[in-house]
C-alpha cells in the first residue's frame, strides 16, 4: 500500500446549496425580526456551518473540496472525513508551476468506502512531475451529505446553537455581565463526531 499522508489543507471549492440548519428552523429558534434580520441569520448559518466543518475536520454538506498534499514518498493520499461521493481530479505541481498537470485517472484509484477515503497510486505509476516541495499534489472531490436527513441531529443542533449565539452576541466583548459556559452545548454535541487524524501508516 505504501506510505499514506493526510492533507495539509482542505479548501471548499464551492458552497453547498443548503445550510446545516434550514433558515425557517433557525428563525423559529432565534426569533429575529422577520424580513429585517433574515439576511443576517442566513449569513450566520453559513458561518456556523464553516465552523462546524472545521471543528469536525469533516465535510458535512455536499460540496466540492480540494485537498493539498506534500506526498514525498507517499503513494496514498487520505481525503477529508465525510461521505466521499467521487474523486474528480488529481493534479500534480512542479516548482513554479501554478497550473499543474492532471494525473491520468489510470494512474490512481479512489477508495471512497474507506474512512477516511483514500487515493492510491496504482502499481507501477508514479507522480508525473518532480513535485514541488510544498503542496505538490491536489485532489478534487465531492464530499458531504446530500440531504439533511443524513446529517446527525447533534451536528444540526450544534450549528443552530452557534448561529443563535453569534446572533445574540455580535460584538466580541461583553461588559458588565457575568458569563458562564453552559455544559452540553456546542462542544459536547460535536465531540462524538470530531475526526482525529491517526498516525499515517
Amino acid at each position, binding site marked *: 500500500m505504501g506510505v499514506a499522508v493526510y492533507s495539509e489543507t482542505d479548501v471548499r471549492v464551492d458552497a453547498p446549496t443548503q445550510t446545516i440548519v434550514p433558515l425557517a428552523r433557525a428563525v423559529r429558534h432565534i*426569533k429575529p*425580526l422577520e424580513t*429585517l434580520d433574515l439576511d443576517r441569520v442566513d449569513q450566520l448559518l453559513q458561518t456556523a456551518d464553516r465552523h462546524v466543518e472545521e471543528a469536525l475536520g469533516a465535510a458535512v454538506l455536499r460540496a466540492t473540496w480540494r485537498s493539498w498534499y506534500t506526498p514525498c514518498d507517499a503513494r496514498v493520499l487520505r481525503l477529508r472525513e465525510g461521505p466521499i461521493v467521487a474523486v474528480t481530479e488529481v493534479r500534480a505541481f512542479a516548482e513554479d508551476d501554478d497550473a499543474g498537470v492532471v494525473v491520468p485517472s489510470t494512474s490512481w484509484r479512489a477508495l471512497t468506502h474507506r474512512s477516511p477515503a483514500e487515493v492510491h497510486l496504482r502499481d507501477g505509476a508514479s507522480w508525473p512531475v518532480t513535485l514541488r516541495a510544498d503542496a505538490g499534489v491536489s485532489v478534487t472531490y465531492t464530499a458531504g451529505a446530500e440531504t439533511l436527513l443524513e446529517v446527525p441531529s447533534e451536528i444540526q443542533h450544534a450549528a443552530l446553537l452557534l448561529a443563535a449565539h453569534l446572533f*445574540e452576541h455580535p460584538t466580541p466583548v461583553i461588559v458588565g455581565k457575568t458569563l458562564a459556559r453552559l455544559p452540553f452545548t456546542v462542544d459536547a454535541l460535536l465531540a462524538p463526531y470530531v475526526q482525529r487524524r491517526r498516525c499515517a501508516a
Partner: protein
Amino acid sequence: MSLLSQLTKLVALSAPASTSDGRGGQVAAPDVPLHPSRAWMSLVPQQASEALSAAGQRKPVRRYAGRMRFHPQVKEGTRVTWRQRTFEVVGVMNVDEAGRELALELVERTQVTGGLA
C-alpha cells in the same frame, strides 16, 4: 439573562391611526401594522392599580416591562397585541444605543369595570 431566552410572546405591532371626520376633526381609524408587523417580546408585570375617572368609574391600570429586538418603528404610542390583549407603549429605550434591543414600558388597555358603589 440573554434576550433570546426572554422572547416568549409573539405579538402584533401597529400604530394608531386617525382620519378626518369631514368636519375639521379626526376620528379613530383602524390601526396601521408596523413593518415588520410581528415580533417576539417579553412582557413582565410591573404594577397594577386603579384609576378613578371623573364619572366615578374605576379603571384598572396595569403596567408592564417589555424587551424585544430592535424595531425601527416602535415608539411611544405603538400598540402591542398579544392574544386578545392590547398594550400601549408609553416608553422606549434603545438599550446601549446599540440598535439591537428595545426596553419598553407598556400599559395594558383595559375596560372600565364599573362605577363606585
